[in-house]
């Protein structure tokens, strides 16, 4: 009888351990971990081109994750990409003249939004727009431009060369 009891306890412990591992994998190592954020506020940013930026991509400041991309829309009249950034409430002292840029992690990695802090004493408030933005660098365009030398725009003329926005 005692033997039987110990099987049941052992089996129970094993199953608990297994589910604990599954819960850990599911909540700590997947995108679920990003949903589980505390209080936050949103910022808007307009880009002429966001490249491969995807929903839930990280927003980083000085390389540290401070929030996520929570919406991507196309503005019908200006034909700009309107990106909504959800920033963790903890980071509430980001200067309101900071700039946003779409960067690529590594050469071929995922794209993310990088915030470059400005010098203003006023912090961003909920719903503010990031005025200074820089669009995604398109690898194809860079290569195309390099190959054609100083040629302006390339033969197909499909995409104009990237210019810093907000200038």
């Amino acid at each position, binding site marked *: 009888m005692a033997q*039987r009891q110990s*099987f*049941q306890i*052992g*089996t129970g*412990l*094993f*199953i608990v*351990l*297994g*589910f604990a*591992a*599954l819960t*850990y*994998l*599911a909540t*700590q*190592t*997947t*995108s*679920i*971990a*990003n949903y589980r954020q505390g209080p936050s506020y949103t910022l808007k940013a307009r880009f002429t081109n966001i490249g491969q930026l995807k929903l*839930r*991509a*990280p927003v980083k400041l000085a*390389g*540290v*994750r401070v929030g996520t991309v929570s919406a991507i829309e196309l503005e019908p009249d200006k034909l700009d990409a309107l990106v909504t950034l959800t920033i963790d409430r903890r980071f509430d002292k980001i200067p309101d003249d900071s700039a946003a840029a779409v960067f690529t*992690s*590594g*050469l*071929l*990695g*995922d794209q*993310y939004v990088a915030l470059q802090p400005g010098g203003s004493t006023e912090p961003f408030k909920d719903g503010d727009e990031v005025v200074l933005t820089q669009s995604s660098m398109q690898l194809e365009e860079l290569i195309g431009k390099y190959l054609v030398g100083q040629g302006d725009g390339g033969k197909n003329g499909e995409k104009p060369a990237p210019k810093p926005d907000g200038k």
Partner: protein
Amino acid sequence: MNAAHRAFAPLAAGLAQIGACGRFLLHVLGAVPRSLRYLRETVRQVFFVGAMSLVIIMTCGMFVGAVLGLQLYDVLSRFGSAAMSGTVVALALYRELGPVVTALLFAGRAGTSITAEVGLMRATDQLDAMEMMAVDPLAYVIAPRFLAGVIAMPLLACIFNALAILGAHLVAVSWLGLDNGTFWSNMTASVDLWTDVVNGVWKSVAFGAVVTLIATFQGYTTPPTSEGVAYATTRTVVFSSIVVLALDFVMTAFLM
């Protein structure tokens, strides 16, 4: 004519085995409702095939994770993407290595012992004795082991994965100096719960069913001799490994 006959004989024998195994599966599934009466047996078997496999699964998980962390950090550094190490480790583990390596280890650790145990029961008339005591061996011996495999395998794979992530973290962050935040934030940015973690769990459920089906089938139908049991045990490992890898390919194709 005779040569052709001889060449096809193993093929025919193999097909007959597959057919017999399929029929056996139907019988086992039919016995599962009746085996609920022997729930205690199933609990006991989860202990034997699951809890008793923990040591090998955890050790191997740790090492697989560590070596993945080492290799991927090195390779990805060449492309300036070392930051992605954690992501690639997690994706490789959840989608492929976790379920497959766990299934192969499980076949060697638990599958063989199931075959040997059931085979010995066959050889010593214990299965016939149960029949004579009006206890269905399919419900009392086979179905609990089958269920235990289906339950234990995904849990073992999750434990394997968790330890492998730990091992990779240890190597990439603590040893090679990758930033801790980068390791985790890249992982959480790219790993999806449903397409990566949950699909991996489905795979290991299927592998658990396949490995224990093969193990119990080999034991149940073994010739009642010591040589018969020995061959049956070997066949369990060989067939399980082949079927797991083939099924992995098929499931990957369908789940992607």
